[in-house]
């Protein structure tokens, strides 16, 4: 059991948590947070898996992928938040119609 496996399991846990929240939480804001957490879990998983080396530097390719992923996810976060803001501004709702709203 070394650090890699810890982080792999952490990644799995984050993913599970994130997915749970992404679906469970009605509030847009938390959905976005959850989506970020899930993403982080996946990134962690990818990089941790690439670190399964006993010596020398780890595989750089997943690193590059994760960098790309982070940028994508920040872009998505921004778009999601922008949408949510506008929706809230227009309707006052913070969750999708049909989801329980928090007031």
């Amino acid at each position: 059991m070394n650090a890699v496996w810890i982080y792999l399991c952490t990644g799995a846990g984050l993913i599970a948590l994130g997915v749970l929240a992404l679906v469970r939480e009605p509030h847009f804001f938390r959905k976005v947070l959850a989506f970020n957490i899930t993403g982080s879990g996946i990134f962690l998983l990818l990089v941790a898996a690439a670190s399964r080396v006993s010596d020398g530097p780890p595989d750089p390719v997943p690193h590059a992928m994760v960098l790309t992923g982070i940028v994508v996810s920040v872009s998505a976060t921004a778009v999601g938040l922008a949408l949510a803001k506008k929706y809230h501004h227009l309707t006052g709702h913070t969750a999708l119609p049909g989801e329980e709203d928090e007031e």
Partner: protein
Amino acid sequence: MIAFDFIVAAGMLLLAWHLLSCRDLFQSVVLFISFGLLMALAWVRLNAPDIALAEAAIGSAMTGALLLAALDEFKPSAKRRNGPGPGIASLLFCGALGFVLAFALLKLPPEAAGLRDAAATEVSKTGVSNPVTAVLLSFRGYDTLLEIGVLLMAALAVLSLGNRPPRFVLAPSRSLVLSAMVRFLLPILVLAAGYLLWVGADAPGGAFQAGSVLAGAFILAALVDTGWMSRVSDRQWRWILAAGLGVFLAAGAGTMLSGVSLLEYRGATSKRVILAIETAAALSIGATLLILFLGGTGRMDTDGKDDS
């Protein structure tokens, strides 16, 4: 060190749980930023300094900024009602998901170098020595091209929505202290961005990190004075936003027209091309992140006769 990893891992999981379930949205954002910092630590532990930098700058700081800006809109209803907890079924299924994942991961072979060695042998041909930068801009440069596209797309999306910017941007702080600090910080941040950009070729760093630092500078400037933005015309903003993609596309087209494959640059020219791309990209990234932060209002689409 395992103990440290345990603590970091446990902290991440706890923070994640907490930030997703706490009542106050503001608290969530703060916890999220903390979570990002822990993540950065983890990246460091996993020998991924490039990601650690990016996480700190983009994943944590930039996203945090975005979240805070959004919170401005949601403030009146930011309190969370104590609803029913996650249903048993949901918990069960998510637990199963985590279990399956962990199971699959633990069954992975314990040793895997991946493409490390292949990358190491080819990195010399790319003209940069940081393998991550080599992957990003040479081996998988095409990914990055599309990624820049994603960023521009995000900017387009946000602009097309035409939201108002957060209140604290609309009403800039008149605090002298703040403005003095910003005036002091701005050149340093720009310098740092330049440095990150330059060093990216050989060490951790690069366009994304530089771009996000630049964005931080832009945002700070906007917080104290929106006026400076109007000194840059709309068209110029758009050029800045599109510059990264434009240069990248030009590089692509150039390589195609010169008879090699798409984005194929080698040897001596390579580093110059990469640097050019990165510079433009960093600039665009900075501008884009600013747009994303501002939520695409007012200033930048004044000529956009919206059709809605």
